[in-house]
């Protein structure tokens, strides 16, 4: 006879709450850390995860997965796959590893927070599995990135990035610290598993796994696919939490979901947008970033939130319109400020690539083509210095990304401008109205200086490009440069071969 079925004993294992006698319940589950809010303690006890797993099932399944993932890694270690990868595609790796590896680690802390301060035993137990999952993702991501350090020091940033003040990392910390560590357990469950993992993580992992396979990068595809298979299990912590919160405080739920979605979308426009539309070699691109966002985020996300009685976010049209703009602006910025990133941005604007961009984004040439033309002219004239920055762009006080990247120069609806706010005698600057609104409502937690404000208040010395790069932790061997060493620009020395092109 095999071990008894999970259903037979599972409820006993989660019947572990009792009435505290020697301490107050409010002290064990303080509002700062637990966040029961308007819902009484008793309401949270109905928390129940839809998809159950037991400890023996977990370790047995995960052992299999680990064996498979490391077997592929070991096999490919002896192959020359990595050497044959396109340099632009390698930048997808590097950006991903740097931006993601230590956020997987941060997620261990989020899960452990819920495992301690979650308001129901079942929730706390699921969160323990969540912490283990995230530990796996941390170690798997680091193990794969570490393989390449000897060949390329930029892979060191898989580990180093979050210890620095690199501008993209400051923006990423503002987002991830903001919704994974700063909030209480209830808010974390709404923001991390519900909004972020069910939406954006899918996007990053599914999209990149597909592109990795197309690019012949079996190792990377193997790793992120294996990680993705864990997401559904711990991502489910959001749903029961949201159900309870919707009954007792729907306004709080709506706000949490709306602001997290907006801020995540802003960051993904820089993390995933350029990877899909510029860095992935043209022949391997299957979908544009916008198409993926429409399929994986917009449709699924709206269906999910409305099924819980949530409303479409107030900024929805602005977000949808941004799919034609944000990541193109951000890509342009990243390429221009390439010494400030730890990968080699692939410009992705050869004639063939521009035709592809135009087919996916009919206004691309109007908004961005002329700027690239100017850069190309400088490249071909040998004026590389004109294609490089002399200072920093003004940054948004909320998302910490450059002002103007929620817009484009020729865009009448969203022109490049700062959305300002006077508060306590200081002028704050924002990339967009939603970022301004989020800052105002969350001003007690959002209140930290952008890198530009640090520069202006003397925190970065000397206040030169070199000083800024030093402050950001960029060393000459790691600073980004054009992935193809500008070879792509050479075809522009001649007029297009065919007028039709």
């Amino acid at each position, binding site marked *: *006879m*095999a*071990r*008894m079925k999970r259903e037979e*004993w*599972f409820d*006993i*294992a989660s*019947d*572990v709450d*009792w009435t*505290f*006698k*020697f*301490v107050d319940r409010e*002290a*064990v589950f303080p509002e*700062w850390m637990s966040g029961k809010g308007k819902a009484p303690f008793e309401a949270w006890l109905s928390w129940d995860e839809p998809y159950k797993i*037991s*400890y*023996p099932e977990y*370790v047995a399944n*995960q*052992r299999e997965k*680990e064996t498979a993932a490391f077997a592929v890694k070991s096999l490919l270690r002896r192959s020359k796959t990595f050497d044959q990868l396109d340099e632009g595609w390698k930048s997808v790796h590097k950006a991903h590893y740097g931006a993601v590896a*230590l956020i997987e*680690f941060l997620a*261990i*802390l989020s899960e*452990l*927070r819920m*495992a301690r301060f979650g308001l129901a035993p079942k929730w*706390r137990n699921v969160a*323990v599995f969540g*912490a*283990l999952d995230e*530990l796996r993702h*941390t*170690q798997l991501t*680091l*193990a794969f990135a*570490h393989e390449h*350090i*000897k060949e390329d*020091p930029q892979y060191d940033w898989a*580990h180093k990035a*979050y*210890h620095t003040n690199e501008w993209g990392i*400051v923006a990423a910390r*503002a987002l991830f610290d903001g919704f994974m*560590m*700063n909030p209480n357990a209830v808010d974390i469950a709404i923001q991390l598993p519900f909004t972020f993992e069910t939406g954006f993580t899918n996007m990053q992992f599914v999209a990149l796994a597909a592109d990795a396979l197309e690019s012949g990068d079996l190792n990377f595809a193997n790793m992120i696919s294996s990680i993705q298979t864990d997401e559904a299990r711990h991502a489910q912590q959001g749903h029961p939490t949201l159900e309870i919160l919707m009954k007792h405080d729907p306004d709080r739920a709506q706000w949490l979901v709306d602001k997290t979605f907006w801020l995540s979308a802003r960051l993904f426009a820089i993390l995933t947008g350029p990877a899909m539309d510029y860095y992935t070699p043209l022949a391997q691109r299957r979908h544009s970033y916008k198409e993926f966002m429409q399929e994986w985020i917009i449709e699924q996300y709206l269906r999910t939130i409305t099924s819980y009685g949530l409303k479409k976010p107030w900024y929805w049209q602005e977000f949808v319109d941004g799919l034609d703009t944000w990541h193109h602006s951000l890509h342009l910025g990243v390429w221009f400020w390439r*010494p400030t990133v730890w990968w080699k941005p692939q410009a992705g604007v050869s004639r063939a690539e521009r035709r592809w961009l135009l087919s996916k984004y009919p206004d691309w040439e109007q908004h961005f083509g002329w700027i690239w033309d100017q850069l190309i002219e400088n490249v071909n004239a040998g004026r590389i210095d004109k294609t490089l920055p002399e200072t920093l762009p003004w940054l948004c006080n909320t998302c910490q990304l450059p002002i103007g990247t929620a817009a484009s120069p020729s865009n009448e609806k969203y022109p490049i401008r700062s959305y300002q706010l006077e508060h306590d005698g200081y002028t704050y600057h924002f990339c967009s109205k939603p970022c301004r609104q989020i800052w105002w409502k969350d001003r*007690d*937690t959002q*209140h*930290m200086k952008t890198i530009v404000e640090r520069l202006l208040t003397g925190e970065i010395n000397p206040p030169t490009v070199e000083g800024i790069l030093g402050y950001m932790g960029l*060393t000459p*061997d790691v*600073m980004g440069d054009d992935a193809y060493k500008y070879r792509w620009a050479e075809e522009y020395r001649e007029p297009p071969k065919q007028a039709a092109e």
Partner: protein
Amino acid sequence: MTEPQPRKLRTWSAFGDIKRVPSEYEIGTHGLNYTARKDRKAALESSPTTPVNLWLLTYRDKSPLSCDDWDGFRDPDQMTYRKYVELQAEQENMIEGVIEEYEAKSHDAHLSGEWVAFLGRALCPMRYPNHAIQMTQAYIGSIAASSYVIHAAAFAAADMLRRNTVVATRTRQLQKAWPDAGFGINERGTWETDPAWQPLRRAVETALVAYDWGEALTVVNLALRPAVDFLLLNALGEAADKAGDGLTWLLLSNLAGDSARNRRWSTALARYAIAQCSENRVALVRWLKHWQPRIDDAVAGLAELVASAPGAGATREVVVKRATQVRREALAEAGLS
């Protein structure tokens, strides 16, 4: 731009001038907690006065247990995720084998009524303190400065979840074999009212609000767990063996392996902390003294429970003595004898 000469790195630059190749454990564990990095305004990239930034400042950064380089610590078991699931999948196979073997013999039906009643009082209610200890391990993991500690504590929380899985399975088995004995029903009442459990209840409830990370580690992992785990796993297991309940004995013996692993890294961490800064010994000793009466009471209560086992053959005093000895040994391992 000029082509920079690539620096020949062999591993994370965070290891500095390391002369050897770091292990898989170190590559996936070293220096990950960027919220504790040097040269930061606050732990989180948010206003320094957010509740959680203040919490981390108070209970982690300003803890009396402090060290310049927590990332110099190593778990003696060098536990990684891969190793953990491998190890525990194997242990769970053993549990399954044991259960299968004993169920085939209708083991529980042959137990004495007296022993069954004892299990209802001593074994099954332990899922409540187990869960509280699980929460404390999760807390230590959520707030420690070093990823070496965070990972070890995360595995410890998972081990406690495993322990409760085994206890719940055993409870259900007994419920099926002895449907009128109150299994699965009476445990909460026992935990909340039985005098033998109340001192432990007091210890774990108050340990849940020991929010300084060093205090939580000291109270739970260095002081409470060695003695309580000895009583609830080893001593109770021995009593089960004597009573002819080989199944309970084997299950508890298996779980004691997790407890021993927890003790290895916790005592190693205390030793490391003291070696790094002798002031840490003062902090650890102060906490141990402060908590000693509560833990003594908990040990006395559980010793009485264990000594009341049918045919136990050991008095409460003897059991207390053994538990105290185990606690002393653990503290000696921690460099706190």
